[in-house]
């Protein structure tokens, strides 16, 4: 840690980095000039609509078109029209773009046919005029059914993927022995609900074929994921698939993998219709059909010695993956890697499974498995503190990891561990806890309570992921004294364009106004890896900074060779005349001393972790049973805030999503179908639900991140739900181990008690 801090503090902080430069894309967005996909004009574009299944499990026997409908200006596409393989390429090759006739329907709202028409209204009418003939099969609609029921959806046991982490023991018997030898065992079962990303811009994509090449543009996080999926589906060479991102109205993981599906549909329709086709989802369709956060069932056993020191942690995590494998294995991986929390413990066993059900596939959502397991371990730590009669913050401080300690995967933490910094920050601003009994602003009786939590989040891809991916980014000299940044990382609202601008400006030593971050387009930008995993600033930003420095060095070398002096800004235009559009592409190399073993799940799970602590004050209305969040403080270590306002914005946005997940957000399935598929009943926090958010940025630099920066996108999502549950438990004297802590649940728990 010492060497890390020292090496990072030697860096010169120049003008752009560390300032809250207004967003580069801000003016276009406040004036309404920014063009999202649905705002684009395309000459002769038709509208595409998806025909979907209405049963969770069954055989598609046939598709019937209503003969009374006028089909003259309608294009219909089925699986038979797919030129290549009928598969959306991701980790497994199990998900079709369209269920073929004779094939198996695996979830409600699965795509079974497509239609396109000159207007949206005609396309919807045509979609309604197609009926599916089906033979229903018995569905699997819960984790318990998947594990113990008779229906086999995947392999013999319905398990898509399993992981096991072992520390300090060799056999399961040793775990039981360690638990038996503990003075106390806290044994609880936790359940978390599915959560909808609810980006405000619905999913949207447009495709067009020109000279044998397929061009797809739309709202997405990962152009190269879409690129990879289109090649086998359309049977095209890499250069004949061109994917570009439009301005994107939020993603949060929801536009990580699902856009490949919509791109496939638009491309197929455009091919048959021989014209551009646009698919823009309705909100209800978006909620019903696209991915959500994985619901999880977690049993957590925490053994303590007589002094309250953790002696053994045993966690069993099961997630509902839904009908196809999608990204579930990776989500589960992150879930288990965080399941022991940032605490010292000599003996740890974590077993994770993600199972197949007939729910629509669950997928990426900010936090990516860690919010679920964080909820469980921070409830456990809270119960331990209470059992020992210890102050919750002091108990966490005593048992938290520091530099030199080992994690559950036996990773020795070398640097950038911000445990004390974030706990200090929370403690300093905590103030007096609320008095338990009181009234709220409308005079209703309430019970108040305060909850805290302490947590960490691995930044970047897991294990050797970044190394395998070998992301690249380019910085180039352009005409007119300007510079280009080319990366496939997308700005989905999180501020990537602005951050890259600042990093490039500082690397070059020029003003930010000289930088153009070009729109991600697979024909023009290298594969920087996906825009996920809190990696864009830390990993790709680092590449941008490195490329900028290389370009600056080349300009300086040229200047020296021709006897010129001056700043890079002064030299750039003439350098372009002499050198042309020189470009430097850099590729990710892992920091030294990072080793990960995929076979045993041991070693450096992440190059570095971000650290955070959260404090929440709640008031539970005893008339309506609503949980109001009266105060929420988050102290989050980000290594270095390249743009403090943008970093704070990331923390605030993630925090409110976490508070929403804690008390009001839920996706309700009935017979495998989303029963609350509108914005009216699939609610997310409004202004009225949101407390004033207090955000403290902590900076303990990561020696291998740009200017010390590490990831920030996901971490704020992980902790607040546990802090809320801890606060409500204190206020009411009843444990809350399930999310959301909705009025119905509070009423039930209080009713059950009396």
């Amino acid at each position, binding site marked *: 840690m010492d060497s890390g801090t020292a090496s990072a503090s030697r860096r010169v902080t120049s003008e752009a980095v560390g300032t*809250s430069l*207004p*967003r580069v*894309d*801000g*003016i*276009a*967005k*406040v*004036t*309404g*000039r*920014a*063009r*999202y996909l*649905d*705002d684009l*004009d395309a000459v002769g574009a038709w509208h595409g609509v998806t025909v979907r299944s209405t049963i969770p499990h069954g055989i598609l026997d046939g598709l019937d078109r209503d003969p009374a409908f006028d089909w003259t200006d309608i294009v219909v596409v089925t699986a038979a029209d797919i030129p290549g393989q009928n598969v959306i390429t991701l980790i497994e090759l199990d998900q079709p773009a369209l269920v073929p006739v004779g094939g198996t329907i695996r979830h409600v709202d699965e795509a079974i046919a497509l239609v396109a028409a000159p207007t949206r209204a005609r396309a919807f009418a045509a979609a309604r005029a197609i009926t599916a003939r089906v033979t229903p099969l018995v569905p699997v609609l819960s984790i318990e059914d998947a594990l113990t029921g008779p229906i086999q959806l995947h392999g013999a046991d319905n398990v898509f993927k399993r992981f096991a982490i072992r520390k300090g023991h060799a056999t399961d018997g040793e775990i039981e022995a360690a638990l038996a030898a503990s003075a106390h065992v806290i044994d609880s079962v936790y359940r978390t609900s599915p959560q909808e*990303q*609810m*980006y*405000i*811009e*619905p999913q949207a994509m447009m495709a067009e074929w020109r000279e044998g090449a397929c061009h797809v543009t739309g709202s997405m996080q990962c152009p190269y994921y879409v690129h990879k999926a289109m090649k086998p589906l359309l049977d095209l060479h890499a250069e004949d698939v061109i994917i570009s991102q439009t*301005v*994107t*109205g*939020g993603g*949060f993981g929801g536009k990580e993998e699902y856009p490949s599906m919509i791109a496939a549909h638009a491309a197929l329709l455009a091919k048959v219709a021989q014209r551009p086709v646009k698919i823009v989802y*309705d*909100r*209800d369709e978006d909620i019903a059909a696209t991915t959500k956060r994985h619901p999880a069932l977690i049993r957590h056993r925490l053994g303590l010695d007589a002094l309250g020191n953790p002696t053994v942690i045993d966690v069993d995590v099961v997630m509902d993956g839904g009908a196809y494998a999608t990204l579930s294995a990776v989500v589960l991986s992150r879930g288990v890697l965080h399941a022991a929390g940032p605490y010292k413990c000599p003996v740890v066993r974590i077993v994770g499974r993600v199972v197949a059900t007939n729910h629509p596939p669950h997928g990426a959502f900010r936090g990516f498995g860690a919010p679920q397991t964080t909820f469980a371990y921070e409830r456990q730590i809270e119960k331990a503190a209470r059992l020992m009669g210890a102050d919750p913050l002091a108990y966490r401080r005593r048992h938290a990891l520091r530099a030199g300690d080992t994690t559950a995967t036996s990773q020795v933490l070398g640097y950038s561990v911000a445990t004390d910094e974030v706990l200090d920050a929370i403690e300093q601003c905590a103030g007096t806890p609320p008095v338990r009994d009181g009234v709220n602003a409308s005079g209703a009786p309430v019970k108040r309570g305060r909850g805290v939590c302490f947590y960490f989040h691995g930044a970047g891809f897991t294990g050797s992921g970044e190394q395998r991916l070998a992301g690249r980014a380019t910085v180039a000299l352009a005409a007119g004294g300007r510079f280009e940044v080319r990366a496939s990382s997308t700005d*989905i*609202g*999180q*501020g990537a364009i602005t951050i890259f601008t600042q990093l490039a400006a500082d690397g070059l030593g020029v003003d930010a106004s000289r930088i153009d971050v070009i729109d991600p387009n697979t024909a023009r930008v290298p594969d920087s890896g996906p825009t996920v995993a809190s990696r864009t600033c830390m990993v790709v930003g680092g590449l941008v900074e490195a490329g900028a420095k290389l370009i600056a060095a080349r300009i300086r070398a040229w200047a020296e060779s021709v006897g010129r002096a001056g700043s890079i800004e002064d030299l750039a235009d003439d350098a372009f005349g002499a050198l042309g559009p020189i470009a430097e592409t850099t590729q990710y190399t892992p920091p030294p001393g990072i080793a990960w073993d995929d076979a045993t799940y041991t070693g450096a799970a992440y190059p570095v972790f971000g650290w955070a602590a959260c404090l929440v004050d709640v008031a539970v209305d005893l008339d309506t049973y609503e949980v109001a969040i009266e105060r929420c403080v988050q102290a989050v270590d980000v290594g270095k805030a390249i743009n403090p*306002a*943008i970093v*704070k*914005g990331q923390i*605030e*946005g*993630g*925090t*409110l*999503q976490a508070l929403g997940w804690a008390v009001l957000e839920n996706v309700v399935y009935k017979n495998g179908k989303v029963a609350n598929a*509108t*914005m*009216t009943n699939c609610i*997310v926090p*409004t*202004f*009225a639900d*949101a407390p*004033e*958010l207090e*955000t403290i940025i902590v900076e303990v630099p990561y020696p291998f991140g740009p200017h010390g920066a590490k990831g920030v996108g996901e971490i704020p999502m992980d902790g607040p739900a546990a802090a809320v549950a801890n606060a409500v438990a204190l206020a009411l004297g009843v444990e809350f181990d399930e999310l959301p802590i909705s009025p119905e649940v509070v009423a039930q728990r209080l009713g059950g008690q009396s």
Partner: protein
Amino acid sequence: MPKLTLRVNRQTHTIDCSASTLLVEALREQLRLTGTHVGCDTSQCGACTVHVDGASVKSCTMLAVEAEGAEITTIEGLADGDKLHPMQAAFQEHHGLQCGFCTPGMVMSAVDLCKRVKAPSEPEVRTWLEGNLCRCTGYHNIVKAVMAGADGMNGGKP
């Protein structure tokens, strides 16, 4: 198709429009004023908010024919040429946006509030904007931006 005359952003337009055409459809599809966004089908999100005779209205809840004769302002009509409206400037300056999809609706609602209440308090801002959803910002910077925008509209005096 029947014709309809609409006054939008100080200009008169005659468009084709059926009795069931929503104002948001007329603005986006006929007039190509795409700064007014559509985020839902249930009048929930507020991304489509415009001004009709100065008052903020969710344009997905109003038929185009109902807006005939009224003075409609969309986000595109708010700035004075290249000079941002003080509320737009405040959103940009105070990082009151991330993905920007909710922003035009937020700005239009906020302008209406600040015309009614010169210096709104934080609770007043939060209550007024309850019909506008943002999933990115946690609302924190939007509140700050609206209060700064109120100052700006008021000639810089709180």
